[in-house]
């Protein structure tokens, strides 16, 4: 077995009291052990209450009505924007609400192809044959496929950084990958499969030197560590509310204001216009320009409450807590005979996603997950929407445990016991 359980920074018992779902049982009475926060986090009652109280007291279409409910709803919606902006060190008018991170990333990709048929102020977003978009081999499909599609629409070429055997970016060829032809570099901050935290500022500096834009997928970093958009070095940052204690149905795209202001719209319709005539339309300033239609009002308000909750706990504490759990888990999982961790084996520049495969006697990750589920331990199996990673490591899939502020070392003990059970069960 691994090292003794560490003293944890957070008072997990107190936190868990805010998450009633963690009290439930699954599969014939097993206590739920939720180790799938990388897919989606659970929500504290504070978030549910914020949404419900909006509906029960203030529900109205924002930015459209002049009556009192509409005023109140607009205040709550814009108040949440201000909170979320402050949470990531941004200005309010740089925060665009989307339905998830995926939409935010697509927004940038489509605005870029729209630039070709927009005015001269959008010229810097135009890409075409001869131009290159750079991604990495560890991207989630959400930060890979939109760029493949942008290339398909425009004739630009997709290039990428490969991975080392430890699951880090292989930057040995950085100067031949990021070149004068590079128009945009899109990369993940923390890999949802490997846990790797990438040197974003360093890569962004290289990209900016050649005049390329930098898009950061911060889905697995904003929920888990202190994060500042300006310090990140990126020009655009996308993340999802549902992975950071917020409701489903809301994401955030942050962009540098000067870039947002020059960028053509993506989704068009109500609330994002300036003047509409049958012959043509002009568009509002950001962030409204990128929020077409009646928005996800309750969800944005819920995300505001999630940010309040996280701020109260303290993001540095959340990060420290997860670091402790990750160290404990890495140690325990690596010490299991026949089990191999996919991703950095050391707890440096690494977050709380522990992916592994059972190599000796080759139990398929799906089967490992099933045995774990049978004990109430909920992990994710498969390619985790990052198929190129499992191809790179020549494995069919992984079993992945991810941690959050409500997880304890007991959860990891249950994981380890479950893996051992799977090994016994599938012994040849």
């Amino acid at each position, binding site marked *: 077995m691994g090292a003794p359980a560490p003293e944890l920074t957070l008072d997990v018992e107190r936190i868990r009291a805010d998450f009633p779902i963690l009290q439930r049982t699954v599969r014939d009475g097993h206590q739920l052990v939720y180790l799938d926060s990388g897919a989606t986090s659970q929500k504290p009652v504070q978030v549910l209450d914020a949404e419900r109280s909006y509906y029960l007291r203030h529900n109205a279409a924002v930015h459209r009505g002049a009556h009192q409910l509409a*005023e109140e709803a607009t205040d709550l919606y814009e108040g949440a924007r201000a909170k979320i902006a402050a949470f990531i060190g941004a200005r309010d008018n740089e925060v665009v609400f989307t339905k998830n991170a995926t939409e935010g990333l697509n927004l940038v990709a489509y605005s870029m192809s729209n630039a070709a048929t927009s005015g001269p102020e959008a010229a810097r977003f135009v890409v075409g044959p001869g131009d290159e978009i750079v991604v990495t081999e560890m991207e989630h499909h959400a930060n890979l496929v939109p760029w493949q599609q942008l290339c398909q629409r425009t004739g630009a070429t997709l290039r990428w950084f490969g991975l080392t055997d430890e699951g880090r970016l292989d930057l040995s060829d950085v100067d031949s990958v990021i070149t004068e032809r590079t128009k945009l570099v899109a990369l993940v901050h923390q890999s949802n499969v490997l846990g790797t935290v990438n040197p974003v500022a360093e890569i962004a500096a290289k990209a900016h030197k050649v005049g390329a834009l930098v898009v950061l997928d911060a889905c697995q970093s904003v929920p888990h560590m202190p994060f500042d958009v300006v310090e990140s070095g990126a020009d655009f940052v996308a993340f999802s509310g549902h992975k950071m204690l917020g409701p489903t149905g809301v994401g955030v795209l942050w962009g540098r204001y000067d870039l947002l202001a020059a960028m053509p719209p993506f989704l068009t319709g109500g609330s994002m*216009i300036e003047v509409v005539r049958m012959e043509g339309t002009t568009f509002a*300033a950001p962030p409204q320009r990128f929020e077409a239609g009646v928005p996800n009002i309750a969800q944005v308000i819920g995300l505001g409450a999630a940010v309040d909750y996280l701020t109260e706990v303290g993001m540095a504490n959340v990060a420290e807590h997860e670091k402790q759990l990750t160290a404990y888990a890495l140690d325990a999982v690596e010490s299991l005979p026949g089990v191999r961790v996919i991703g950095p084996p050391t707890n440096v520049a690494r977050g709380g996603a522990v992916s592994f495969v059972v190599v000796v006697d080759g139990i398929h990750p799906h089967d490992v997950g099933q045995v774990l589920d049978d004990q109430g331990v909920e992990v994710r199996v498969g390619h985790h929407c990052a198929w190129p990673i499992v191809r790179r490591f020549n494995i069919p899939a992984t079993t992945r445990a991810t941690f959050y502020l409500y997880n304890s070392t007991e959860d990891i003990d249950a994981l380890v016991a479950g893996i051992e059970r799977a090994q016994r069960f599938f012994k040849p």
Partner: protein
Amino acid sequence: MKMESLYQEIILDHYKHPHGRGLKDPYSGEAHHVNPTCGDELTVRVQLSADGSVVEELSYEGQGCSISQASASVLHDLVAGQPVMDAMAVGDEFQRMIGGRGTVEPDEEVLGDGVAFAGVAKYPARVKCALLGWMAFKDATARAVAGADASTSTEATR
């Protein structure tokens, strides 16, 4: 009664009997602003003195609610004939009051009839109405100062 705090007598007076309405020639700067939420629009023209230091004339034309139209009328009274610097200061004070959510004590010395709009600050949806003329004025003046081509350009009040 709250409504009367919004629709002060002075506002209704200016609305029913606007001052300075009707576009005048010549002018050195013009701006056409629109409130995208409700469709109110206003064109404001300024004629600056040759050295650009004084708003010699301010005229406007548009359509909109009582607040936006009365505010343009008050704008005319407060700004026409004033030094540009002073006019801008009045605009800033007006904007500070309107955007203050009812917590800002307006400076009556500076704002004159403009203080009648203090009640608007409590109705966030009407803030843009009250500012429409003022934002157009700032824009028109900026264009005049920049010696920019004075042609009409549509720009929303944000």
